């Protein structure tokens, strides 16, 4: 009798575990299926520009002429690739010093109320939707640039400014986490040697946390590179390589945003847009790869 009840109990356990395991396996499987199908579909459509429409790699990546509807259609995507890289790098250049200072403010200068002040600010900034950033950029930054600098206001500078505010929270929170995880005795020994706070920050704190801070910068750049709507609203969307900060330009994401709805699936122009999506996807892989490399360095 007793043996039987304990046996049924074990079976009940097995059944419970089986149900739980199959449920979880299904969830995990779904994750795997979603990424595999995403990579497969984007890649298969993305390479059709080269496979079906016979556009050469060098024409696509280094051609500067984007006129898909002309008599002699050409699919030079260099202006968009250049636009994406320029705005992303500029945004990182503007946002990184600000973010690092904010992180230092929160952890080193006034750890008490500095954190209480900046933590909600960072959270709110990261919560504001990107279209709202675009709207504010369009109605504040663009008129400001138009009044102060030459040009129409829309352009690379406006795009970079909007993006820099958007990636501030990403860099700041990663940097602040790294700074507050720093062992206390490192700082104390530096102070004991008679170093000032700035000397400690510049010679001890920043060098030791550099890989982590760079991780934050790369994550921010990944976000800036993939951001579509906010940039599209303020950058002007001209298919040329910009020669000045106040000139209109396009990014990969802004061209896809505007073009995808107006082209038919399978046309050469549509395929070229998918190739740009493929470039975006490969860049995401690259960013994740760099982040992993930096994290490996951090753990040593």
């Amino acid at each position, binding site marked *: 009798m007793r043996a039987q009840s304990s046996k049924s109990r074990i079976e009940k*356990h097995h059944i*419970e*575990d089986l*149900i*739980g*395991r199959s449920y*979880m396996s*299904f*969830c*995990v499987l*779904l*994750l*795997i299926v*979603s990424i595999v*199908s*995403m990579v497969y*579909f*984007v890649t298969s459509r993305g390479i059709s520009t080269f496979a079906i429409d016979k556009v050469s790699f060098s024409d696509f990546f280094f051609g500067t002429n984007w006129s898909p509807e002309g008599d002699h259609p050409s699919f030079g995507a260099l202006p968009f690739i250049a636009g994406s890289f320029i705005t992303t790098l500029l945004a990182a250049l503007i946002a990184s010093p600000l973010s690092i*200072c904010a992180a230092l*403010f*929160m952890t080193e*200068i006034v750890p008490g109320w*500095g954190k209480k002040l*900046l933590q909600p*600010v960072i959270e*709110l*900034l990261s*919560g*504001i*939707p*990107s*279209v*709202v950033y*675009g*709207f504010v950029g*369009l*109605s504040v930054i663009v008129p400001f640039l138009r009044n102060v600098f030459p040009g129409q206001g829309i352009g690379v500078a406006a795009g970079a400014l909007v993006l820099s505010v958007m990636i*501030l929270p990403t860099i700041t929170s990663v940097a602040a986490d790294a700074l507050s995880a720093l062992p206390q005795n490192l700082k104390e020994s530096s102070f004991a040697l008679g170093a*000032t*706070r*700035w*000397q400690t920050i510049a010679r001890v704190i920043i060098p030791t946390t550099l890989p982590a801070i760079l991780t934050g910068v790369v994550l921010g750049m990944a976000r800036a590179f*993939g*951001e*579509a*709507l906010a940039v*599209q*609203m303020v950058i002007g969307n001209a298919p040329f390589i910009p020669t000045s900060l106040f000139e209109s330009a396009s990014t990969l*994401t802004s061209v*896809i*945003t505007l073009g*995808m*709805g107006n082209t038919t699936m399978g046309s050469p122009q549509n395929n070229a847009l998918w190739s740009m*999506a493929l470039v*975006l996807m490969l860049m*995401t*892989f690259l*960013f*994740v790869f760099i*982040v992993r490399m930096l994290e490996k360095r951090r753990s040593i």
Partner: protein
Amino acid sequence: MKAKTADKIATYVIVTLALLIVAVLAGLLGYILFRGVSHISWDFLTSAPRKIRAGGGIGPQLFNSLFLLVLTLLITVPLGIGAGIYMAEYARPGRITGFIRLIVEVLSSFPSIVVGLFGLLLIVNIFGLGFSLVSGALALTVFNLPLMVRITEQAFRSVPPQQKEAGFALGLSKWKIVTTVLFPVALPAIITGTILSAGRVFGEAAALMFTAGMSSPRLDFGNWNPLSPSSPLNPFRPAETLAVHIWKINSEGLAPDAAEIAAGASAVLVITVLIFNLVARYFGRLIYRKLTASRRMN
């Protein structure tokens, strides 16, 4: 003395730049609310938009955004919690776990427009769901799932291991321990994280332009039959959300008061996200207080 001067200058610079960020946020919120709130009225929140004439509202868009949010959470929450539990409690360090971790990492940094394109190709065209709420919700699932997995994993990892050991000592099965011992403890963190992720989903636009569509059919809010094309509850109708609407008016708005509508809609969007943030924070504090009180009693 030189080192001291450098220290002073550096401190001033750091403090100034940090306060600059606070000023940027204050300016942003102030601008959005100042420009937008005066335009918000009950009529603005409930009436349909007009294409060419002034005076349109955002009623259907607001409804679509909320409905889409509910649909997305219905799909992502159970799936994300399942995968998160696996990552926290079952996954052994090894190649497969490393691979899944990489997937979560890659998925969460995917540009949302690429997710939107993927949705356009697979869900809208190949599955034939068309521009619809379901397509939008599925695209947002791809977008939101990695976030939910992370939230759940972190919540489960922060549960004290003694609780699990106590469960094992009682002879419970692992799944029983997960569902009846660990899950209730991890729940507050999961709920807080879910509300925060809901804020992100609510403001998402790029992934929805090509999946949920950029138009909204004439809705009859008296019609609650989910299969009728004019019913707001029909999940197979196209649905323009609030964020997509803001983008559309800013880039191709024809109404004479387009700027005011954009300002009002932005204010509504930001206020909603703020409410999500406050609710998440309040809820987290409430649960935390309950937990600490019960600890004190023991």
